[in-house]
């Protein structure tokens, strides 16, 4: 496939936005300015960017505990995201959801999810609705390697195939579930080996290569829109920081060497090198992009910091549309 310079820039920008947002969130967390758990997406940007660049605003995605990257890639508002992470009333969830439930239904982002694997059945529901309405929308379920061991993933994958729904299962295989290496929790090496058990095509892509992810997604999304049913994409990727927060706590469960080897394949820098090499872009252009988004992130932090906290009376608001509260 031939990915145009525009799309290459698009992929790059999405990744830069994620990277800067996540780095900022990490710094704020270390400064104890973000309450709760924080699962950073740094290192895996090519997956969210490559997938979401193949989607329209009215396509749906479901996400994971590691969900900021997905929302940024789907076009999320950085101000409202940062405000949510700080628990402010201007946040996406008015401070009620936080990092693990960040969402934007107007962008088809059906929420980060604190329950591993729980997003996939919801994506099946969105895909069902999309086919029901016959407007050509698709749904994408993001999930980790570890999530493929849980029942909800299995049921979702099978149901999607049985009902032949327009859905893409996008696995971010970063080789760990929390602090436990993947090979201790499954006897297979490639998640894609599970696809045949549901009767859908599966493909492995380099999850550090946004273009590769994007191409695979274009194909899968096209198949879905054309009534060709579900697909599984396994993106081999890596998270640069800890399972949650930034630093490893306690036990060293990954070797320095392993981390360093993956960092060499940084998805943003490798794309930049490639684009420069192919004369698609100049260093200066990239510098400008980084600078622009750095400023946007600074504004987001300022917006979030200046935003008010939710007031106590909000606790009982939005449990129900009507008829709740006691």
């Amino acid at each position: 496939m031939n990915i145009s310079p525009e799309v290459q820039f698009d992929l790059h920008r999405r990744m830069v936005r994620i990277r800067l947002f996540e780095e900022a969130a990490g710094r704020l967390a270390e400064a104890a300015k973000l309450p709760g758990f924080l699962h950073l997406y740094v290192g895996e940007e090519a997956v969210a960017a490559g997938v979401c660049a193949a989607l329209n605003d009215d396509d749906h995605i479901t996400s994971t505990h590691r969900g900021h990257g997905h929302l940024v890639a789907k076009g999320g508002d950085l101000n409202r995201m940062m405000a949510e992470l700080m628990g402010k009333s201007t946040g996406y969830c008015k401070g009620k959801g936080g990092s693990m439930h960040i969402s934007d239904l107007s962008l088809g982002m059906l929420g980060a999810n604190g329950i591993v694997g729980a997003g996939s059945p919801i994506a099946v529901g969105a895909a069902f609705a999309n086919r029901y309405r016959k407007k050509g929308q698709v749904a994408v379920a993001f999930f980790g390697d570890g999530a493929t061991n849980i029942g909800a993933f299995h049921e979702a994958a099978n149901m999607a195939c049985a009902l032949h729904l327009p859905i893409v299962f996008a696995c971010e295989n970063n080789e760990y579930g929390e602090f436990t290496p993947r090979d201790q929790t499954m006897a297979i090496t490639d998640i894609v080996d599970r696809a045949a058990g549901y009767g859908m095509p599966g493909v492995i892509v380099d999850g550090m290569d946004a273009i590769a992810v994007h191409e695979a997604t274009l194909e899968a999304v096209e198949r879905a829109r054309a009534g060709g049913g579900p697909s599984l994409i396994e993106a081999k990727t890596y998270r640069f920081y800890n399972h949650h927060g930034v630093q490893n706590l306690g036990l060293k469960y990954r070797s320095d060497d392993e981390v360093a080897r993956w960092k060499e394949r940084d998805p943003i820098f490798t794309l930049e090198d490639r684009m420069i090499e192919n004369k698609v872009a100049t260093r200066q252009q990239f510098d400008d992009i980084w600078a622009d988004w750095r400023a946007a992130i600074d504004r987001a932090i300022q917006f979030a910091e200046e935003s008010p906290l939710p007031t106590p009376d909000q606790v009982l608001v939005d449990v129900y549309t009507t008829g709740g509260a006691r």
Partner: protein
Amino acid sequence: MSEERKLAYVMAFNEAVSQAMEADPDVFCAGEDIGAFGGVFGTFGGLQAKFGTDRVVDTPISEQAIVGLGVGAAATGLRPIVDLMFMDFICVAMDQIVNQAAKLKYMFGGEATLPLTITTAGGGGLSAAAQHSQSLEAILCHIPGLKVVYPSTPYDMKGLMMACIQEDNPTVMVKHKRLLGMSGHVPVEPYSIPLGTANVVRPGRDVTIVAYGRMVHESVAAAEKLAADGIECEIIDPRTLQPLDTDTIVASARRTNRVLVVHEAVRFGGLGAEIAAQIQEAAFDHLDAPVGRIGAPFSPVPFSPALEQHYIPSSAAIEAGVREAMFRNKVGA
């Protein structure tokens, strides 16, 4: 005429679904064996023939994905009815019900509506044993974000099911298996009963019985016996268990000064505990006896009819409970 029309409880459910599907193309149903077969209890009978396989969907045996299908479709604009064959199976799908459906709107800061109806069949009396006979409604009522409905008559079934489908929040509609064949007056035209409104099944001055589901009928039987002895029971059927129409219950308690709460669920930690706790809070000075509670003993549901008939609360037990409340002697404080 419509006033004359009688319908079985199961067909009242079916008619509500059918009329709702006619009125709103966004309503669809999904579940195991509900399509060609019409559901193992016949609840969805004939609907696939009428509305097609796109709108009445047979699913794999995948309770988590069935509820997830409903959550995702509801969040993206449809109005799903998803069926979990037996109430015991809510345990299989509990994460999607409790952690997803119930909380989605709140977690998203209100930016979602989830017009999802989960239907299921509860209760014992069919010798279906410990995994096919449970009454787990108290669990659902403890979860903010869910509404829980439990009709006791064909009339209420149609009106409440219609209300569930029209409701913008996730509801769980529990059918009682032993009531499926019960016949009663059901208007032909669509109607809905507002969620959260109790029904005074029988007025009475002496004692209030709060009961729902099949226990309403056991209570009526007990009340008839008691009436022969001059004890007049007021029977209140909350119909909606969450939100609960506490006002109607408390007003009755203040009038009769004696209350018995009855359910088929295990007594310990059942909804009766909440109702009793609320009554003694709101009508403390009016009570002439402790709020009594009748529920199943603290064991799984036994298989053998010889055991199950003693396990499920009976009208005799209700009668005894009322008599105890009526003739209670004050012990020294």
